[in-house]
């Protein structure tokens, strides 16, 4: 594609700046001694140290991490298996299944959250970290499957067949040939699932119940009570965690395509 006209390039630059402005202001404000964005009263880590004093925040962070790790593990396994099944095997209804796999992605989060609330209420299951984890696995399976599937495109079974010809059993083939091949895609899917779980608000909101809180839920209730700089600090931390995960995923992609 040829170079864009100057005004298009200019518009793009402005848009990109505006895209990052709110986040930049947020991060900067978390280090600002003043509560007001316009006034810079000096650099401080006070808002961050206050976080460490808040047991509820630390508890919510711990809950978010545990839920994210467990749900990512399960969703990655299930999603990868689905992707392998779809990519490498022909069976009747394959196209339909692949289409249906997109349903959890397309369905509005509020519908997913409410329907799970309804399910748990009907079954008499107490809401808590367990139900949150179940919900996160449910919506992440499709994401992982789709990501891994995209990577599997064109990845033939030649190496597996060669290994089998050489006498390797199915399990050995899987762990020593298939898995290393698809690993970058699987990790990318896992990182995606992790960030989606860690950041999730809407679905978690409805299946969390009274006793348990994740970090996004806590941030939401804090925001509802009114803006305060501590929220900026937590937000910056959340941003940092997810950015690192995304950077890793991006690095993996670059490394794979080169």
């Amino acid at each position, binding site marked *: 594609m040829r170079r864009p006209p100057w005004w298009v390039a200019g*518009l793009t630059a402005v848009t990109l700046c505006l895209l990052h402005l*709110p986040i930049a202001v947020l991060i900067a404000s978390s280090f600002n001694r003043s509560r007001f964005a316009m006034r810079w009263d000096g650099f401080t880590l006070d808002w961050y140290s206050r976080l460490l004093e808040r047991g509820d925040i630390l508890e919510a962070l711990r809950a978010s991490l545990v839920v994210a790790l467990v749900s990512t593990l399960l969703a990655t396994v299930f999603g990868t*298996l689905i992707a392998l*099944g779809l990519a490498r095997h022909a069976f009747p209804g394959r196209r339909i299944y692949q289409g249906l796999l997109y349903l959890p992605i397309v369905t509005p989060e509020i519908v997913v959250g409410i*329907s799970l609330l*309804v399910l748990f209420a009907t079954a008499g299951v107490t809401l808590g970290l367990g139900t949150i984890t179940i919900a996160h696995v449910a919506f992440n399976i*499709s994401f992982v499957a789709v990501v891994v599937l995209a990577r599997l495109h064109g990845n033939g079974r030649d190496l597996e067949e060669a290994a*089998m010809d050489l006498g390797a059993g199915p399990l050995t083939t899987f762990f020593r040939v298939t898995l290393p091949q698809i690993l970058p895609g699987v990790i990318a899917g896992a990182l995606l699932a992790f960030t989606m779980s860690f950041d999730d608000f809407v679905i978690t909101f409805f299946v969390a119940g009274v006793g348990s809180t994740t970090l996004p839920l806590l941030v939401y209730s804090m925001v509802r009570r009114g803006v305060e700089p501590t929220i900026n600090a937590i937000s910056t931390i959340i941003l940092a965690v997810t950015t690192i995960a995304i950077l890793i995923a991006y690095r993996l992609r670059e490394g794979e395509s080169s």
Partner: protein
Amino acid sequence: MRRAARWLAAHDRVRAWGLLAPGTLWLLAFFVLPVAIMGAYSAMERGLYGGVEPGFTLASYARFFDPLYLRILGRTLWLAALTTLLCVVIGYPVAYAIAGAGRWKHALLFLVVLPFWTSFLVRTYAIMFLLRDSGLVNSALLALSLIDEPLTLLYTPGAVLAGLVYGYLPFMVLPVYASLEKLDPALLEAAESLGARPVAGFLRVTLPLSLPGLVAGSLLVFIPSLGAFLTPDLLGGARQVMIGNLVQQQFGAGRDWPFGSAASFILMALVLAVVYVFLHRGAGALPEEVE
């Protein structure tokens, strides 16, 4: 063991189902079943303290045709459509610029995608922080003496719109970029050698060929906007209610689970209808792989 392995190897279908089974079962139990139960709830009687009572009734669906709720539906459609339009207007030039950026492409794409991957809640809060009465926008305007007192930027339709566009812009940029990237420069050169001026070249060559990306991007923006909950909740306050908020109210203070289920079902039907229309109108136009 060996015989089982060989039998499995010979029966491709069984292996396929074996691989698909765990995930599929989970999805059936925790996605399909819940939606089905919710559908059943939507046609049941309302329980006294929330929940449902046995009894078939379509009263909840009938109630949705009240002007109050139709207005909410209308507002939802309107905001989603406007968001999509703004994303096209803002996102297309950005995608165009990135596609022509040469070696800066990947870095620029990363810059566009990065906010999208971070927490939606945090980004929505960031807009709140910016637009509130003592936020940066008002403070700057006051400092420049452009206004005398803070403008009410928050809790307006504009704030919700800003939040939605801000949240979903990358969804528009990426597909449009993908289809612009695949554009063969030779086509444009051919048009120019035949005498077409740049504007004509754009309108008659570039734009039509980037249509698949526009369709995909519009789909990726319109659909989530329909189901928006957090954005109108935080940025719109009590006045900018969209369907998502309506559903939440019914399961919260409203204590009308059947009505909430019905509204939720209507939202889902709306989304599926849009997907269906997009996929069939733009069936040939959709790209195979949308990154």
